[in-house]
């Protein structure tokens, strides 16, 4: 496959066939990690032109159901080390049909630009007329009017948060999907890069028409006609609100509690019954897990309404709902809309606002700091104002909030209840030990790397020793590093076992001779190499006291036990890094 390198400073681009790279690392995570190590100078400032953005897909992208995602890698301006985020939408297929396995973006444009990639042509367009627009959605609408190939193009863009270098700004992908975490939007902003439009009309060869059709049909049947992915279609990820609440795992009011008395009113069921208007899908995925709510808001006595379409998912409902004590689905949707149009990561924004609310309660911050925003649990209007201030950064306090919760707490206090691990604000699972250890030790500090929350739930049924928990986490880490080379949507991870992956690759003539887990290990190693190079130390990560003060699904957690597990994990990593 080809790698397209885009030089923003010189406004030029070149494509190169990188056969060996893709043979060795398959695609996605593996190729991106390798390209990041090669292209990101050690110790560079994440907001400098030296920090590259890597986008990568895999050999199954757009060829099989649910192989619809793209990996982005960069140095994170939020954590200062590995930045990795995945997104769906139409981007993966658009890259594939434009003929690129990976895109590397380097340098910084002299003034705001957007890049238009149409098959082999790369155009640099002046983006000054769309810089400063208050909503990432509007930017999409404008680009839809000027870019070719509706239906098969992808339009990815930043909102004002990215332009203003909020450290956790996201990149909006085709309106309803995102590169959400770790600040890719901020890196775009630092490069004066407003958007990328990409489309292609190339065809992919099939090694065996018969094998391909059979393999496709088998996978399609499992995805569509069995229960394996039904929950993602029916209620979507929001279905997790009620069960996690029952398990005492739903972080509530900045994790002062792990159960929310209004959970029912922000549950997947409540959203489906009251607001759900349609589902949409990423290109090539028949599941349709993207749930969109419609809100009708009256604005006059004459039966006039603003009609808003707002996508929702579990993590957004947790971060902008229970974590902020917001007791009604409608109010959560208002906040989601505010955050989404600004182009902010919803999880981090929720955690930052939750810390601010508690800091305000404890008088660590005053109205002088907040510019008269009076934070209180469930105070949606105050939160919406604060979101706008985080983007605008009119004073020191909001400048601090724009750098993430760990930075803000370092400056104003309240570190014991600043819910970040390794400088990344936490996802919504207070399930127990594996979740915390998994968050800290995973290559991108994400619950998405090793699903610690799932291991915790297994441990409820059958108790696990610390060694067993650590082994399960690492095993999952390795496997997902491999699956992410193919960039199969992780929702479908249960569908794609080794046998089916082999069949799929074989049908395309892209056979992988390597042992899958061994390759996953190798990629895990590459990512850790980058993390360590940029200064990450597993034993230096601080765990805020709040995690030990609030009951989890597994009861009260013990600091010694978590520390012990981190020691075990560190031992495993050292062993791996020393091995050849």
């Amino acid at each position, binding site marked *: 496959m080809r790698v397209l390198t885009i030089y923003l400073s010189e406004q030029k681009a070149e494509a190169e066939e990188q056969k060996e790279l893709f043979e060795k690392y398959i695609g996605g995570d593996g190729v991106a990690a390798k390209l990041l190590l090669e292209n990101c100078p050690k110790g560079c400032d994440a907001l400098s032109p030296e920090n590259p953005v890597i986008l990568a897909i895999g050999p199954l992208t*757009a060829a099989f159901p649910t192989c619809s995602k793209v990996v982005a890698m960069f140095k994170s301006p939020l954590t200062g080390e590995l930045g990795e985020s995945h997104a769906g939408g139409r981007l993966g297929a658009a890259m594939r*049909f434009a003929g690129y396995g990976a895109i590397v973006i380097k340098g910084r444009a002299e003034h705001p630009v957007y890049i238009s990639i149409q098959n082999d042509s790369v155009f640099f367009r002046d983006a000054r007329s769309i810089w400063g627009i208050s909503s990432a959605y509007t930017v999409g609408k404008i680009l*839809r009017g000027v870019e070719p190939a509706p239906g*098969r193009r992808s339009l990815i863009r930043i909102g004002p948060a990215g332009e203003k270098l909020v450290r956790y700004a996201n990149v909006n992908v085709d309106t309803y999907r995102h590169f959400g975490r770790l600040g890719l939007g901020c890196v775009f902003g630092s490069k004066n890069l407003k958007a990328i439009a990409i489309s292609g009309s190339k*065809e992919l060869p099939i090694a065996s028409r018969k094998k391909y059709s059979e393999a496709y049909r088998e996978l399609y049947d499992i995805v569509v006609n069995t229960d394996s992915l039904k929950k993602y279609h029916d209620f979507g990820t929001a279905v997790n609100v009620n069960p996690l609440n029952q398990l005492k795992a739903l972080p509530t009011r900045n994790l002062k509690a792990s159960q929310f008395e209004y959970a029912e009113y922000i549950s997947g069921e409540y959203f489906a019954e009251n607001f759900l208007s349609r589902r*949409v899908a990423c290109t090539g995925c*028949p599941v349709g897990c993207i749930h969109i709510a419609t809100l009708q808001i009256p604005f006059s006595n004459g039966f006039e309404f603003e009609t808003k379409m707002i996508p929702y998912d579990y993590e957004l409902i947790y971060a902008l709902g229970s974590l902020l004590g917001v007791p009604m689905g409608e109010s959560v949707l208002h906040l989601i809309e505010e955050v989404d149009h600004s182009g902010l990561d919803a999880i981090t924004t929720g955690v930052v606002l939750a810390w601010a609310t508690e800091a305000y309660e404890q008088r660590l911050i005053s109205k002088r700091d907040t510019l008269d925003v009076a934070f209180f649990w469930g105070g949606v209007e105050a939160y919406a104002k604060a979101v706008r201030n985080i983007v605008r950064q009119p004073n020191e306090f909001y400048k601090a909030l724009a750098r993430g919760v760990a930075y803000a707490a370092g400056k104003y206090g309240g570190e014991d209840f600043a819910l970040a691990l390794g400088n990344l604000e936490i996802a919504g699972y207070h399930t127990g030990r594996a979740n915390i250890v998994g968050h800290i030790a995973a290559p991108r500090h994400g619950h998405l790397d090793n699903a610690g929350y799932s291991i915790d739930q297994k441990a409820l049924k059958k108790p696990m020793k610390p060694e067993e928990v650590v082994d399960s986490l690492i095993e999952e880490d390795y496997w997902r590093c491999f699956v992410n080379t193919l960039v199969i949507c992780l929702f479908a991870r249960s569908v794609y076992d080794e046998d089916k992956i082999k069949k799929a690759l074989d049908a395309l003539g892209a056979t992988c001779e390597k042992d899958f887990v061994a390759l996953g290990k190798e990629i895990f190693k590459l990512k850790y190499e980058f993390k360590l190079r940029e200064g990450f130390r597993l034993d230096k990560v601080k765990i805020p006291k709040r995690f030990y003060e609030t009951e989890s699904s597994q009861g009260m957690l013990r600091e010694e036990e978590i520390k012990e597990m981190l020691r075990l994990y560190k031992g495993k990593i050292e062993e791996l890094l020393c091995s050849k």
Partner: protein
Amino acid sequence: MPRLKVKNPERCIGCMSCVFACARIVHGVISTDRSAIKVRTTGGVIGSEFAIITCRLCEEPACVHACEYEALLMEKGGLKFEPEKCTACKACVEACLIGAITFDEELNKPIVCTHCGSCAEFCPHDVLEVET
């Protein structure tokens, strides 16, 4: 003759499984272009509805009338395309207001729907149907 029908366009989730099915099963490639069915976003009041663009097998097909070389014919109630007679004049493409016939620049031929129903078989949301 079987006839493909866009039965419930509002139910479309935009997954493109139908597009990939046509490319894969009828044309033997992986592509979003070499397909007789297309799915596009249309913008509009509720964000992004999908337009499903495909041949409706008109009673009096304008494409057939437009073809001066008898490459497109109505036969037993179905549309028949004979590529060897086609001169790539694109008159059929221009005649169809729906845009159901697209022109494959690489093959230098129009892509004509055979109403085989492969796309409908791979629609997960009950949008397409084949009438027999």
